[in-house]
């Protein structure tokens, strides 16, 4: 017969699921695309709030000094706010610059060097920023009293 068992055996089982993508490179770029949009919406709220409180309220940028930061971080809400803003903005920005490097740096070596610099900057800035938020001392000993928040001396 023309339709022998050998030909029939090549047909996939009807119960095996249909797989469109034949490669196994993962969905990384899809997740990165979704992350940019999700983090973007959150960052609009976080950064507009940050700009309003630091630049619009009271004397704006003139009011910012060590005591101002100590006063803000005395409220845990601002600690969480700044920590979330740090991480989301750094991942969002790093991923955006990664996309731009991939678009314009054509040589493999150039791309590799630029992305290594980018990821190094990401790690340094995120680690330093996170440590600062978690280890901040609003009333450091031996500091001139007039530079500290009022609650340090009260």
């Amino acid at each position, binding site marked *: 017969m023309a339709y022998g068992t050998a030909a029939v055996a090549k047909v996939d089982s009807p119960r095996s699921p249909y797989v469109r993508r034949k490669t196994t490179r993962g969905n990384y770029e899809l997740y990165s695309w979704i992350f940019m949009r999700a983090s*973007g919406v959150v960052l*609009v709220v976080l950064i507009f709030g940050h*700009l309003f409180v630091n*630049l*619009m309220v009271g004397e*704006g940028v003139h009011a910012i*000094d060590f005591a101002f930061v*100590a006063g803000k971080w005395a409220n845990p809400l601002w600690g969480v706010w700044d920590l979330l803003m740090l991480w989301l903005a750094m991942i969002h920005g790093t991923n955006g610059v990664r996309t731009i490097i991939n678009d314009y740096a054509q040589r493999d070596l150039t791309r590799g060097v630029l992305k290594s610099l980018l990821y190094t900057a990401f790690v340094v800035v995120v680690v330093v920023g996170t440590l600062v938020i978690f280890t901040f001392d609003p009333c450091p000993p031996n500091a*001139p009293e007039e*530079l500290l928040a009022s609650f340090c001396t009260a």
Partner: protein
Amino acid sequence: MPTAPAGTLYRGREGMWSWVAHRVTGVLIFFFLLVHVLDTALVRVSPEAYNAVIGTYQTPIMGLGEAGLVAAIVFHAFNGIRVILVDFWAKGPKYQRTMLWVVVGLFFVTMAGFLPRHLMNVFGGGH
């Protein structure tokens, strides 16, 4: 040598230029962010070190830089919302051009609210 057919060079329109502006503002904001986290990290060094550096943010030239930075952030924020609407709202692609003019309108309204107050803080009496 044959002449190139006229009118075939794609020069982009609102969609392309808003994409360019989104990239440019994004890169500017990212580099400021790197510097800004590191200058804020000086609160962990000493109050004097932090106050010295943040004092430079309060000079007129830096005050103008902050105005530019806020302008970049406001455009990137509103245009980012537009990008999301283009991607997820069924009628987004149809209204992408209209939405860009809405973004530009909101940009001017927001900057009109921010700039006078900020410039008064920077250049006004104060201290």
